């Protein structure tokens, strides 16, 4: 009749932990919504920053891919003791003899203005520069045509011109079919093509490109030394080619030759934007911290308000651990809800901005997972103290307070 052993211990099922832990949230919806906001904003900021930087990085990467890391730009150094700013006229021929070089083209600035008609004053240049190029330029730069065709061996000797995209727009030319001509240095040039924007050499967007022989005949009246030589190498051979280029292009004074890689500029841009990313991530972390403190605050208030509930639960057989688990669950659910809202918000902002910038939308999975984990962690930490306080509350005191 008189068993002296304690009855089997109290148990709270996992599903019940979740139900009991969400009870307070469901019955105080406005407060739940407001206290979720802080964490949501913090997570949204972090996801948004990571998503935007990933999207812009993807955009830069695609630009670099289009450009190719195997494109080199060779120019003559300028300035006192560093040369006269011209390359030998053998530069293109010599460079094409380097083994891994697949394409070489020269591009040279010619002093002249481009006008729609001869009635327009010579002073109105529209910011358009005239360049002399060889027919291989299009292939070397991986550039493409919006309309018409590029110079070939024949048209390079005739007064024919290919316009950059901005230049065409400035001159009011959208189509080559009209048989339009432009006036360059006292001669009429047929417009035979219009370029798409050129990633490798953005300067070409404002250019009028004529063939090298045509420029010599119709504009300068003398032979032209190449200004810039573009070199396309086999994949992975850029560094090697870059090392031998100065000696090849100008064996007499190799120090007057300057070799750059256009993709390096974009890579540098990428590095610069990552500095901003860490700044904004820091701001997001601050918002998250404030959100976490808000949750801790709300939970402390909830514990004080719900003393009788705690007392009742202890009377119904809840252990201290059950009470602790209930309030910890509530804090984690609160922050977790903030995390979900924040991730959605951050993704939305990223998608909207990326679309506006015409970038590919990239939301890194690590940002989504990281955002949720961070929110849950914040909730757990924020709930630690209030939950411990709730668990420590003696049942008699909890029941007396009403």
């Amino acid at each position, binding site marked *: 009749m008189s068993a002296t052993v304690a009855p089997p211990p109290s148990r709270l099922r996992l599903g019940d932990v979740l139900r009991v832990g969400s009870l307070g949230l469901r019955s105080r919806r406005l407060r739940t919504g407001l206290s979720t906001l802080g964490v949501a904003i913090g997570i949204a900021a972090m996801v948004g920053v990571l998503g935007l930087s990933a999207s812009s990085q993807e955009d830069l990467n695609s630009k670099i891919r289009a450009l190719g890391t195997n494109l080199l730009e060779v120019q003559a150094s300028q300035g006192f003791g560093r040369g006269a700013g011209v390359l030998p006229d053998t530069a293109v021929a010599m460079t094409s003899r380097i083994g891994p070089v697949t394409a070489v083209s020269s591009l040279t600035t010619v002093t002249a203005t481009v006008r729609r008609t001869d009635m327009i004053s010579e002073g109105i240049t529209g910011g358009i520069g005239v360049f002399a190029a060889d027919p291989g330029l299009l292939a070397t730069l991986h550039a493409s045509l919006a309309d018409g065709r590029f110079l070939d061996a024949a048209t390079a000797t005739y007064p024919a011109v290919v316009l950059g995209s901005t230049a065409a727009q400035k001159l009011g030319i959208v189509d080559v079919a009209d048989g339009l001509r432009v006036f360059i240095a006292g001669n009429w040039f047929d417009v035979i093509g219009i370029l798409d924007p050129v990633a490798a050499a953005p300067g070409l967007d404002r250019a009028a490109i004529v063939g090298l022989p045509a420029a010599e005949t119709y504009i300068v009246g003398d032979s032209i030394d190449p200004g810039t030589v573009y070199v396309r190498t086999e994949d992975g051979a850029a560094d090697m080619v870059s090392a031998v280029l100065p000696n090849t292009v100008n064996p007499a004074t190799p120090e007057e030759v300057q070799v750059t890689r256009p993709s390096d500029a974009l890579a540098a841009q990428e590095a610069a934007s990552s500095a901003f990313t860490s700044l904004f991530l820091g701001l997001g972390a601050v918002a998250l911290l404030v959100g976490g403190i808000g949750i801790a605050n709300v939970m402390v208030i909830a514990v004080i308000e719900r003393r009788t*509930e705690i007392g009742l639960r202890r009377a119904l057989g*809840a252990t201290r651990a059950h009470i602790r688990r209930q309030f910890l669950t509530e804090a984690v659910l609160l922050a977790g809800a903030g995390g979900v809202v924040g991730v959605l918000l951050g993704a939305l902002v990223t998608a909207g901005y990326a679309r506006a910038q015409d970038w590919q939308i990239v939301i890194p999975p690590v940002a989504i997972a990281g955002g949720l984990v961070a929110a849950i962690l914040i909730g757990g930490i924020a709930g630690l103290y209030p939950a411990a306080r709730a668990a420590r509350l003696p049942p008699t005191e909890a029941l007396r307070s009403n």
Partner: protein
Amino acid sequence: MSAALELVDVVKTYPGEPPVRALDSVSLRVDKGEMVGIVGPSGSGKSTLLHIIGTLDRPTSGEVLLGGVATAHMSDRNLSAVRSQMLGFVFQQFFLMEGVSALDNVADGLLYRGIAPAKRRAAAMEALDRVGLAHRVHHVPSKLSGGERQRVAIARAIVNRPQIVLADEPTGNLDSRSGAAVMELVRDLHSDGHTVIIITHDRELADSLPRRVSMRDGRIEQDANDLTSVESV
């Protein structure tokens, strides 16, 4: 008759200057199936006695046996187990969860026993039927009258088939009619074989009970058995 509750020389002092001796060497035996009123003015120690019997608090010295199980030196965890399985509480303020249906309020009486929700609800249904509220199971407390709320609370107290139902001023927040109905229900539970201990300061209510334990200054002043009652030995 075996004892449902045995208090042996229970002393409870609260620290202070000077220390307060809330219970002074209280010994009490309640047999299974008995209905006892513990009565006394405020400050007599009856609330402390309720907490000690309900294992919500531990005595400073002495022993508390519930169904033969010694609880005075149990861990907090084991005391929780005792409460979840051996005791049912009815409070003056009902303590029902707002926004939760009567059925789920009653089912919460089994929450900490690790029983599946469907089984808890089935037992709760039965208990609500027992207190005459089978037609109000899906109502939330705010849609129930005071008397109905206390009946829901009583259903919650008996849903785990406890050894002892502990009621603290069960009619204290009710008008006299609802109070009488609730006491009627409590007497029915007693007739069904439940052991019931009622703490009250209400002399009239206490006088209607078969056994009355009067408290004063932390001591049992009088333990009166109604000789016409069958339960008294």
